[in-house]
């Protein structure tokens, strides 16, 4: 079964062609450059860019896959969570395309997409699927969600950030330290030459819950940097390493505890922050089951993960999707 899949929930326009939920026949992503000038995403600008890009990118994806719409079996598109103005572009384009081509339309939950990125194959070789139940940590500039996947289409949100997303914290601290955007890779690079124990920073979690909170940590880094500035120069490497340690420990601690409590058979990552090697190392150290991490291109938002989620959603028929789009769409 071939699915044409569309992702427009934030600032990446993605269209992919996915076969049987796992094989990538095409995966076209247009990253919006308009936001670099503003250093953050302006929703109206993002929605305008999606509308400009969606049809040409769909055309490219079909060409890349070497197929016509007649060889497509279903259309999937993200319907939430995300920025409503952005979601509406991909969802309505996808619905229109499905109706006119006589194909079923599948509304996809964006978080399920990040989870199912772990099912996508990198080569022609058929790897075994990740074992369930599993705990999935989705961390990016837009999400910090800890999810229990009991079975296909049976998800439970265990915890999430109560303020900023982890990726946002990386971005803001990077800006504070005079490093570039996006902050994740910049902090990781600067932290390599730093001492992670140089400065004690507060924990970024809430006791007795699986929720995260990164705003206190961020403020502590701000105060620390200010006091260091008053004394002289800021040791950027040491501050970056101490900050990274605090955020990675919070994410790894909660993930490992959830994995132990629910007796899962694997742990999976998703979202741009999953590319952080300190995070992967720290989680691996703390868990006794296999850790799955998609390659960086499939960790950030893309159409392929939506195609994978659409396939499994069709195969395992879960909860009905709402007719429109929802900024806060809950997991099935």
């Amino acid at each position, binding site marked *: 079964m071939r699915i044409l899949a569309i992702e427009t929930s934030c600032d990446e326009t993605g269209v992919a062609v996915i076969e049987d939920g796992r094989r990538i026949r095409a995966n076209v992503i247009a990253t919006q450059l308009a936001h670099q000038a503003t*250093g953050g995403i*302006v929703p109206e600008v993002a929605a305008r860019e999606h509308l400009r890009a969606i049809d040409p990118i769909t055309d490219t994806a079909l060409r890349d896959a070497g197929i016509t719409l007649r060889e497509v079996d279903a259309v999937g598109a993200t319907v939430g969570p995300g920025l409503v103005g952005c979601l509406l572009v991909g969802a*309505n384009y996808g619905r*229109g*395309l499905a109706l006119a081509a006589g194909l079923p339309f599948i509304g996809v939950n964006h978080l399920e997409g990040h989870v199912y990125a772990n099912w996508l194959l990198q080569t022609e070789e058929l790897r075994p699927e990740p074992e369930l139940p599993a705990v999935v940590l989705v961390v990016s500039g837009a999400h910090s969600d800890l999810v229990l996947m009991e079975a296909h289409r049976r998800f439970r949100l265990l915890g999430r950030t109560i303020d900023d997303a982890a990726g946002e914290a990386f971005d803001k601290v990077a800006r504070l330290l005079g490093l570039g955007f996006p902050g994740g890779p910049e902090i990781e690079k600067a932290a390599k030459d730093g001492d992670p124990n140089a400065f004690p920073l507060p924990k970024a979690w809430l006791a007795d819950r699986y929720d995260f909170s990164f705003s206190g940590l961020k403020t502590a880094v*701000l105060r620390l940097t200010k006091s260091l500035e008053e004394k002289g120069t800021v040791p950027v490497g040491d501050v970056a390493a101490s900050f990274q340690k605090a955020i990675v420990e919070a994410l790894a601690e909660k993930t490992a505890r959830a994995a132990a409590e629910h007796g899962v058979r694997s742990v999976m990552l998703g979202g741009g922050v999953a590319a952080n090697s300190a995070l992967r190392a720290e989680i691996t150290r703390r868990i006794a089951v296999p850790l799955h991490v998609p390659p960086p291109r499939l960790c950030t938002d893309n159409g392929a993960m939506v195609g994978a989620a659409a396939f499994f959603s069709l195969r395992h028929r879960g909860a009905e999707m709402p007719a429109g789009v929802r900024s806060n769409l809950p997991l099935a």
Partner: protein
Amino acid sequence: RVSALLALDTSTEWASVAVFDGSAVLAEETWHAQRRHAEDLFPTIERLLTLSRQQIGTVDKVAVATGPGSFTGLRVAIAAAQGLARGSGAALVGISTLDVLAYPHASSKLRTCPLLPAGRGEYYAALYQERNRKWARRSPFIVGSLVDLCRQIGTHTLFVGEIDAEGESTLRDLLGPLALFAPPASRMRRAGYLAELGWNELAERTQAPLGALEPIYVRQPAMGGSFAQPFTPPPADDAALGLPKRTA
């Protein structure tokens, strides 16, 4: 050969869909969608196709209202129309929402000014008039307050579109007897007119690439909002960093 045009308009809180066969409007629905365009649009399309006894396969033309109007609303119908055209190979045409509003009043011979709410107490507008037996838009697309707009009006003008009671009395105060109003039912925007304009336009020109069809935004996007954090040098305090207000 069987041929049908599907017309979609979600430019404002009011939405409208029609099916047209080149000579008659076979089915049409106009409703107060408020913010539910995305939920309502596809069920409405499917219902009207059934009512007009058309299959989606016979739709070989799609016309869509391109604004000005609500940015998000415009994108709902335009994205849907692009998807429909991509899915079936139908021809796609965009028509200004203000053109659609003015068109039914062409035979009145009056200068006609359609109005649509632009937020912040302002309106989108344009002026239409017959000259040398040709009905056409005679001004650029304008956005402004009714006071700004009335400075450009020196003759009897028929106002149509989404004008509430307050707007109507403001126009009467500013223009006196020069301000004429169509009755509420004929002020509305109906996709049957969009369909007719779209059909005529498609008869006259060749298809442009689907992605080339853009909304008429008129206004630039506002750079405010919680996601916008302009790049600044290392900041001095929480507020400058764009950090959320701290709760005790």
